[in-house]
């Protein structure tokens, strides 16, 4: 039983090793190895989740012989294990379901390099989830940045290269700002580990002369991570990045990479800065307002665009807005809603990005709406999965999207302040309406017969596609139907998170 505490370490070190190993393997072997390995990781993380639930408390794991303020540390609780499990499930589904497109988008001789990047990305994601140290967070943030640019660029067409360059520049800017924030915090406190840093900051915050400096450091760090994850004024890179990437990469980038940044930010707030200090800083109001604006602006831009992938990408901008709004809202309810939405959105968005290329495929490879007419009739399976994702995004009951909207509304009502209730409720109402508008329009479009009777263009889908899609659908329904269970788990996780 005690041995399970080693598993978080294994998920990181073995992923790094797998990345290097895939560089040596043949492409076919690398694919099989990666899928088996991700499955193995899911088992490990499930064991960790079971262990922390059974013991009822989080555990810290010293990396090496030197304890907390001197050496590195990782820490696992219910929330970390849940997020890690969700990330891994989405990862294995994306790799499996998008492989058919990967083969055509990328030169076959280089496919093993893609799996190298996927494994390194897994290592970075796992480290960001488990880490208890701000600088470790920065190092693996760099690996995540590089791998995400790498998986984006594999398509080697002009549009992706352009998108990748822009994505890389913005991401490096974000990393730089995050590093600047970490340096300022280190200068103030003399610690990089989160728990001692929090104690020192709580002490420092009582001095009114130092509080603004803490505010600047936290602000810069927040701007850096919100550029990387695509909060409202910084969301303009999303449509090109997600829209032109190969489907697996689009799913990985939108569902996992941006969520990992948000999770790191949340962890920094909760564990390194401390909620009490955060309450004294104006940054949470800014996050609330920007989140709410992002929801509305993202939805409006999604209506405006004429390209299915761009629409889904803009809807991502809106969903990221939800998460930041939850963090800005504050309180246990707000954080619960934000974390719930991290999982709900990761599961739903990857499903959407993995179905849109199949809809486009039967429409002659075109993602423009006028060409997509009737595409769901030609490939009913993809149409079905797209419908589920769209329903979840709109917020129709029994799907994950509904539960998370419910959580946000509950959080707004239980939290104090009429202004905040108003902002959140307005954002929820407007965005639900707009979401319904563009997703229903899309659904009507793809289910309208286009006149030509060639309905069985693509009836056969491989099991490699069905299985992950069914898994994502099941996860979606689990989040939607057993929302109380998940919220309960997140509550337990938050209690042991700080």
């Amino acid at each position: 039983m005690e041995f399970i505490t080693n598993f978080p370490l294994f998920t990181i070190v073995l992923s790094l090793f797998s990345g290097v190993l895939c560089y040596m393997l043949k492409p076919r072997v690398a694919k099989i190895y990666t899928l088996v390995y991700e499955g193995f990781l899911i088992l490990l993380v499930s064991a960790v989740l079971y262990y922390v639930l059974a013991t009822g408390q989080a555990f810290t794991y010293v990396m090496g012989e030197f304890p907390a303020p001197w050496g590195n540390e990782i820490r696992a609780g219910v929330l970390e294990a849940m997020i890690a499990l969700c990330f891994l499930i989405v990862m294995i589904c994306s790799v499996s379901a998008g492989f058919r497109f990967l083969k055509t988008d990328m030169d076959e001789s280089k496919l093993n390099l893609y799996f190298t990047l996927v494994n390194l990305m897994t290592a970075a994601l796992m480290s960001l989830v488990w880490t208890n140290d701000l600088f470790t967070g920065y190092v693996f943030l760099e690996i995540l940045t590089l791998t995400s640019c790498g998986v984006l660029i594999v398509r080697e067409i002009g549009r992706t290269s352009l998108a990748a360059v822009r994505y890389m520049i913005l991401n490096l800017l974000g990393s730089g700002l995050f590093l600047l924030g970490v340096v300022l915090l280190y200068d103030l406190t003399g610690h990089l580990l989160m728990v001692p840093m929090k104690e020192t900051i709580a002490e420092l915050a009582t001095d009114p002369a130092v509080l603004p400096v803490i505010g600047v450091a936290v602000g810069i760090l927040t701007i850096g991570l919100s550029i990387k994850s695509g909060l409202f004024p910084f969301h303009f890179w999303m449509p090109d990045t997600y829209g032109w990437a190969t489907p697996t990469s689009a799913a990985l980038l939108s569902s996992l990479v941006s969520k990992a940044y948000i999770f790191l930010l949340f962890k920094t707030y909760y564990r390194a800065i401390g909620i009490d200090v955060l309450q004294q800083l104006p940054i949470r109001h800014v996050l609330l307002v920007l989140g709410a604006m992002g929801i509305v602006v993202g939805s409006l831009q999604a209506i405006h665009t004429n390209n299915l992938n761009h629409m889904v990408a803009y809807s991502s901008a809106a969903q990221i807005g939800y998460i930041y709004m939850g963090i800005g809202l504050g309180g246990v309810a707000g954080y619960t809603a934000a974390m719930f939405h991290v999982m709900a959105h990761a599961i739903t968005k990857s499903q959407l990005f993995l179905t849109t290329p199949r809809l486009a495929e039967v429409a002659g490879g075109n993602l423009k709406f006028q060409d997509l007419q009737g595409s769901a009739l030609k490939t009913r399976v993809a149409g079905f999965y797209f419908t589920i994702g769209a329903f979840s995004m709109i917020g129709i009951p029994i799907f994950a999207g509904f539960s998370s909207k419910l959580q946000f509304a509950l959080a707004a009502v239980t939290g104090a302040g009429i202004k905040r209730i108003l902002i959140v409720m307005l954002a929820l109402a407007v965005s639900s309406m707009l979401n319904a508008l563009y997703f229903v329009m899309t659904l009507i479009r793809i289910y309208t017969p286009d006149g030509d009777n060639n309905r069985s263009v693509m009836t056969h889908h491989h099991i490699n596609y069905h299985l992950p899609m069914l898994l994502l659908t099941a996860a979606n329904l689990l989040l939607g139907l057993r929302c109380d269970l998940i919220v309960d788990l997140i509550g337990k996780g938050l209690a042991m998170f700080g």
Partner: protein
Amino acid sequence: MKKAFHRFYNLIAVICCLLLIGVLLYAVSMLPHYGQENPRSVEVVERYVHDGLEETGATNIVAGMILDYRAFDTLGESHVLFTALICVIILLGKDVKNMRREYDGYYTVEYESYHKLADDKILRLVGYILLPCLFLFGIYILLNGQLSPGGGFSGGAIMGAALIIFAAAFGFETVDKVFTEKVLKGVTFVSLAFYSFAKGYVFFTGANGLENHVPKGEPGMILSGGLILPLDIAVGMVVACTMYGFYSLFRRGSIGHDHTFMDQQ
């Protein structure tokens, strides 16, 4: 309309930058001054400085810090380089997609010979004199990481630079005789795998309170600092391979001599 917007946009950008500069200057002015001891940051630094030699066995405290106290960060850092190498191979490595017809003439033989530096007499002569020194110096810095300033990253960078000069002065054909893609792959794989497992072993034993069987050695000697020396060598190998790999990929689109594409042409 559009022009007015752009002007407005530029104005806002400048104002934002000035604001950011002001805020940062203000924040920095509030920090403890340079050279002045920060009363709060003593705890961590003190142990590194005072007990570092005893606990890690490294005379060079920086090496002890990055490879022993905070080895997990460095484990990630060494994989950053590897990730960058993979990205460059994906982008620049010759394959069917980026050797499409419209790119004809980028990697042709004429182009290669036109830019051949190997016939340059001055470069060659300087290479003869400089290269042995460079390799020796790189190895020295690599092996003395635990004793003096230096270590894997800097020593590896010097050796990588030496490899690049080697390729520039004597041509890729000469380097390809010893340093093929297979060698680079093998060295990178062995180094990084060794790094991961050695550090994984230390993390595992440390966290579980088991005995660590790596001898610390006598401080001040070459064989000291426990795992620091082998880890430095591993990091140095990765850095050298990565740097040479970048150079080779940027110049000819492959790391070793690429038979498949040359034969097709």
